[in-house]
Structures are given as structure tokens and as C-alpha cells.
């Protein structure tokens, strides 16, 4: 299953990439592939912006505006004037982030 097209903020700077492959390991949607010593994005629309790749890229080659894609959380954020927040711990909801 794939979500909306052409919307995610994931960016890869090949010049900084060392080809270590950690992005491909941590990505839960197999967005990256290592070929010829560099990471490549296979299908960017598979990305869910979890941010694992960018957080684990020692070389700063990946950037993504990460967050939880959760409508209730975004609504909470708008209503409270804060950043999107699921608050699963407060509401005892296990569902908000899977």
C-alpha cells in the first residue's frame, strides 16, 4: 500500500553519502537501495517520514521533516496551537502510532 504521491519531504544528497547502508537498514519501507557505493531512493512515495534514516545518517546526507502522520494528532496541534501530537500515552491509545 502506498499513500499520496509527490508529497514527502525526504531528500538525499548523494555528494555527502558514504554508502554505509544504514539508511537502507533502518527504513521500514525499503525506500533506499545501495548501488555502486551510494544510497539511492527507489520509490520516494513509499516514505512515511518516520525520520529514522536522517537520524542515523552520520554524514548528514539525508533530510526529512519527520513526524507522525496522524490526523487526530494534527487536529490536536491546530486546536492547541502546538506541533502535531498524538498523545497516545495520555489517552492510553496504542493505536496512534501503530
Amino acid at each position, binding site marked *: *500500500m*502506498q*499513500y*499520496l*504521491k509527490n*508529497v*514527502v*519531504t525526504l531528500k538525499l544528497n548523494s555528494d555527502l553519502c558514504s554508502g554505509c547502508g*544504514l539508511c537502507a*537498514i*533502518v*527504513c*521500514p*519501507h*525499503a525506500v533506499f537501495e545501495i548501488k555502486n557505493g551510494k544510497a539511492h531512493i527507489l520509490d520516494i512515495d*513509499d*516514505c*512515511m*517520514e*518516520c*525520520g*529514522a534514516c536522517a*537520524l*542515523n545518517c*552520520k554524514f548528514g546526507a539525508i533530510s526529512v*521533516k*519527520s*513526524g*507522525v*502522520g*496522524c*490526523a*487526530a*494528532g*494534527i*487536529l490536536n496541534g491546530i486546536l492547541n496551537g502546538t506541533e*502535531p501530537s*498524538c498523545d*497516545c*500515552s495520555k*489517552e*492510553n*491509545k*496504542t*493505536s*496512534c*502510532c*501503530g
Partner: protein
Amino acid sequence: MRMGIGRDNYIVTPGLYKVGNPDKHSDVLVSANYKLSFDTLRKNLDSLNIWILVIDTKGVNVWCAAGKGSFGTDNVVKSIKKLSLNLIVENRNIILPQLSASGVSAYKVKEQTGFKTIFGPIQAKDIKSFIEAGYKATPKMRKVTFPMKERAKLIPVDLLYSKYKILAIMCTLFLFSGLDRTGFLFSKMIDTGLFPVINVFGAYIAGIVFAPLFLPWAPFRAFALKGAFWGLVITVAINLLFKEPLLELTSLGLLNIGIASFMTMNFTGSSTYTSLSGVKKEMKWAIPFQISLSVTGIILFIISKLV
């Protein structure tokens, strides 16, 4: 339990746990202190000798905690130092669940503790084969899926989520059913009030049960449209059972689509593949769409009672 009942009893005390008879050469697994995660992990480690480092994620599961920061670099570093892991094991590796990677930066943990983070598979059931294969995961072990069985598990939680709002809408429409050119007729309310209640309940089920359960079936990517689709389907289905005047049916159809669309949009939070940017983009048109459909539906419903 998933619904929050007895949640407090489902926290594992943070600390270092033994599985089998681990020694200074054994592997160290890091886990959230959500009891379901911890128990599943333990069950899948039979015949292995392993340390489990349980960190305090406030009883929240790995992925959720990683997203919120409690299963994060700082917490992992703190736990390693606090428990003096460097004195307990001689190796300098820790195995973390892959889904903690959105909270834990492996190279920062290494810098701060000397321990190298190895990201294990997503599912606890694959841990054993991962270790036996020399800390190698197959591509399948690294991919999050969202099969019908997993989606079905999340439905009970969402069913309770908006129960008061939906009851309020049902009561309001039940009352409105008694509206008449002559004022308000109690007998009319009793006679015709059930129809809108059935519709709204149907729309709620369509948005929360049908749309998530048959998620890939609806021909749209946006969750709000998937919900709208199932809202339309349920309206048609209900009309096949109860023949009602066209205007009333149309009004309830609009309301159904609005409600089901909103409910399914909220399922984005439970899904495992929606992005923040995508949900924001969707909501920009979906919220006005849902509000205008619902308001128009309710106005038309009132008109249908007065003409």
C-alpha cells in the same frame, strides 16, 4: 488492554533482565517497557542466553515511543550508563529493534557509550534467526506491513474513540425527525427517528470498520476519500433495505459521507505508512469537505421534514 483497561499493570520495571543463563559474552537486546512487547520478545528467545535491557518508555510500544522520543538516544545512553553495562558484558554491541531507529541515533550512542548499535528485525519472532544468521536480517524482516489481521486489531480502539460525538449526532437527528410543518410531532419522531440513527451508525461503522478492514479496496489513496467511498456504499446499502423519500435519503447520504470520511481520516494515525506531509495535505481539503457535507446534510434533513 489495548483499549487502556488496566494499562498501568502492563508496564515492565526498567532494568537488565536475564533470559536463560547469559554471561559476559552474551548478546544484549534493548526493549521498550511495554509488557506486550517485552513478553513477545521473551517468548521468542527460547534456548538462547541473552540479556534484555528494558528502558523506560512509559509503557509505550517501541515505534510509538521512538516517535515521541522516549525510546530515544538519550534514554538508551542513560540506561547503559546507569546499569554499567560495560562492566556486565565484554562485547560492545547492543541489539535494538529496527523501529526504534526513528528515535535512536546509532552513531550518537556509539560516541557516548562506546556501544555499537545493531538494528535487529522489526518483529520479535525473527530475532532468533537474525542472531543465528550473524546479525543479518532478510529484506522481508526489515519491512513494515499492514495486513488485514493487524488492521482488525486496531478497530476496537477506534470504535470507542468518538462514541460520545456520534451518540450526540444520533440523538440530535432523532429529535429533528419529529420536526413538522405544524411544529413538532412526537409520534413522527418515534415513527421516523430510527432511520437517521441507523444511517449515522452505519456511517460510523463504514468509516471505522469497513474502510480500515478493506483499506486497499477503496479506489483512492487519501484516507478521507476511502472513508467517503464507504460512506456512500453504506448509504446505498441502507436504502436498499429501507425505501425513504429522496430528499431525506440525499441529506443523510451527504452526512454519512462526511462522517465516514472523517472517521477514516483519523485512521491515518493507526496506519503504518502515512506521512505527516501527506496527512497535512489531505486534511487541508478534507476538513472543509467533511464539514460542508455534514452541515448541508443536516440542513437538508431539517428541510425534508418541513416540506
